[in-house]
């Protein structure tokens, strides 16, 4: 076999292989082989153009970012319009989260109130945009903070309600008095638990009667020490700062990294002349 013959043979072999490959490719692309494949019980390899195969295997919901508020609903909160200010601040926070369109997470809100001898899950954890109305908190009775902390720990530990794909949750404690139950062991339990201990914890002390040492032990964010509210408008400022912090986390590159609390100045028109 001369060189020309050899080269020709090589070329024709290459040419034939290319033709077969092209033919096979076109056959798959046009779906001609699909019926045959389906008859064997296997799905067709080629989908319609633009179809994303990942859709069948992925979760169709954004990652949640839970925000759980522990709100003091003891009798002392009924004085000087504190509970009214708290109700309004919570409502504003839910509204802001629900209308926030830039976020890369589903912000969920849960509300635990503690007063009247017991703590209760006042608003179960739900996406902010699904909370259409929130009945106002009424203040009465003692300050069972320990029960509220246990309830929060249970909620954070529950992988059904807060899956492991969720971003690090935020716990917000708002109180104006001295706890009336065994809060220390409940806090220790929260701090020692596997998941609940990883939540970012913010705290606000309302009025001069608040036991700041309790709240300081609760807060774990170095960039956000206990905030002291002396007036009702300070409650709004605190919740606005929490809202900003959570919202900035959801649009940042690192949603698990706390950005602390930046407390803006309260506008003058919001100033209520309250003495507490």
């Amino acid at each position: 076999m001369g060189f020309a013959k050899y080269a020709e043979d090589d070329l024709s072999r290459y040419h034939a292989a290319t033709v077969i490959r092209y033919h096979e490719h076109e056959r798959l692309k046009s779906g001609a082989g699909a019926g045959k494949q389906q008859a064997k019980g296997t799905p067709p390899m080629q989908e319609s153009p633009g179809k994303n195969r990942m859709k069948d295997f992925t979760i169709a919901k954004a990652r949640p970012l839970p925000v759980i508020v522990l709100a003091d609903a003891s009798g002392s909160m009924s004085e000087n319009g504190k509970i009214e200010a708290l109700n309004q601040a919570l409502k504003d926070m839910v509204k802001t989260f629900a209308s926030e369109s830039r976020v890369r997470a589903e912000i969920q809100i849960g509300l635990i109130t503690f007063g009247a001898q017991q703590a209760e899950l006042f608003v179960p954890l739900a996406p902010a945009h699904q909370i259409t109305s929130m009945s106002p908190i009424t203040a009465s009775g003692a300050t069972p903070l320990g029960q509220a902390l246990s309830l929060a720990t249970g909620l954070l530990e529950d992988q059904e309600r807060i899956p492991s794909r969720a971003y690090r949750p935020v716990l917000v404690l708002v109180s104006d008095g001295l706890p009336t139950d065994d809060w220390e062991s409940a806090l220790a339990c929260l701090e020692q638990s596997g998941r609940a201990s990883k939540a970012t914890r913010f705290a606000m002390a309302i009025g001069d009667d608040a036991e700041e040492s309790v709240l300081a032990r609760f807060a774990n964010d170095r960039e956000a020490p206990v905030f002291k509210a002396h007036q009702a408008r300070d409650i709004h400022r605190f919740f606005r700062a929490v809202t900003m912090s959570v919202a900035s986390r959801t649009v940042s590159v690192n949603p698990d990294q706390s950005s602390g609390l930046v407390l803006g100045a309260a506008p003058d028109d919001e100033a209520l002349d309250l003495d507490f």
Partner: protein
Amino acid sequence: MLLGTGASVRGPAHAGSGECNQDALGLWGWRHGRLAAVSDGLGSRPLSHIGSRLACRSVRRVLRTDTPWDDPKAMISEIYRHWLQALPVAPSQAPCTLLLAACRPDGDTLVAQLGDGLLAYRAGGRFSILTPGRNGFSNQTEALGISRSWTDWQVARIRLSAPGDALVLMTDGVSDDLVPERVEAFLGMLRSECAARSRRRSRAWLRKQLEGWPTPDHADDKTIAVIFRR
């Protein structure tokens, strides 16, 4: 015959902020078998993209030499040491997770994982997941540069012997959005889709799938590597 393919794409969060992909992917032919490494730089650290790239490179450099195959602890220690030496910055500034798979041509395979992500395989016709269940929240992970403990590593020796056997390595940008019960079907789908294409086309297909990730508001970088027996 063992084949491998993979892709890595920058997530919308990094694309939006103009930052680079902090994931890294390495996929090589290795002693007539396949070698794959996937690494996710921790987003909270400024230079973690350097860490993740060097982690993949360290896997290749160490395994290219005659590292003892029967002593995974020694091998992983060597990879870790190589990574520490190669890093131009402090390890705490560039921490990253690492998932690796070293497959010999006969299917004898070593898989290892430190930190987040998912490593799943079908070996000898049986499906398994190497990654343990997570007890925490997303992006809280062990990593090179943070962990010093051998117990933080998940290691297994498997054999990709049966036709259709395959393994997949992925960062948490992919694994956190997967339906847990569908991981086996996901591996099967990846295998069949990649086996039906040439290496170049399967890489392009994989990249396209990651770029069009269907989970709403997803943010993370995404990296995936697949090795399968044809």
